[in-house]
């Protein structure tokens, strides 16, 4: 009963969490994790003010 109440009161958050998890999984599947690593492991010249 309490579990049902918990889900009911947080249904939007739960749906958004599932959507977020789905997007993460699809992003990983399409190799986007590598793209993030590729960018993050080099010095971003714009970020530090060189341009």
């Amino acid at each position: 009963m309490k579990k049902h109440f918990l889900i009911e009161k947080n249904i939007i958050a739960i749906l958004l969490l599932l959507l977020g998890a789905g997007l993460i999984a699809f992003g990983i599947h399409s190799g986007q994790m590598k793209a993030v690593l590729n960018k993050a492991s080099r010095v971003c010249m714009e970020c530090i003010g060189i341009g």
Partner: protein
Amino acid sequence: MDKHEGKTKHCGGGVRLGIQAVATLIQNANFKGFFTGKIYTGKSKQVCVPGLNCYSCPGAIGACPVGSLQNFLSGRKFRFPYYVLGILLFVGALLGRVVCGFLCPFGLLQDLLYLIPFYKKNQFLLDKYLRYLKYAVLAVLVIILPLCLPLTPTFCKYVCPSGTIAGIISYFTQPIIRSQMGKLFSWKLIVLGIIVVSGLIVYRPFCKYLCPLGAFYGFFNRFALVRMHLDEGKCVHCSACANACKMNIDPSRKPNSMECIRCGDCVRACPKSALYIGVKGSEK
């Protein structure tokens, strides 16, 4: 009279400051980098951290979500940022702006700045209008301009103070980078300077007026799993919560305002324990 004028109020208790410090240290655990100036290139950098923490900071062991998002949007070939957006959506749905109050390293810096005894003026006429600026920053500098200008992460390039701090560290540790710094770095130093000086006077000016991440997470405050709850039966409308709030919100009227960073000052100030932050339905 401003409710915080002439006094430096403790930033939401030592526990929160402790959590913020630990979160900052974890996100910047490549301590060696602060001395060598070399950035971390390990696998953890494929995961975005929840708060604003530049991936070009020599200490950073994770990727910046705002920078990563712009990287996808401004790429030569457009790719929808499923992964980064998924992380932002997941974190937002789970915590909302709890990230701002507890996990963001730049939030910690601003909290520490506000602790410095100085002239305080946390409420002023333009405050409520300037709040909208961060949504414009999110829409224009983080989404629209990177989509229109290839290879230009506009927010990171012209505004991001976290990147400027990374630049300052590189300035002192990397002679090659130092020799290349010019007008853009000077501009970014001015922006950082304005944020730091205003942070002595106003509580968290960057979070209130400029942060695109705070703007994004703010949309989730109403729906996030961890959110604020008001027990209307207990509330006596004494305004103690509103007076304690340094983000200038009235939690008894809008407990899940998009501006709330979940610092918990209002919860501690409430004499009737009418407010709490947690998961609805999990109370005993």
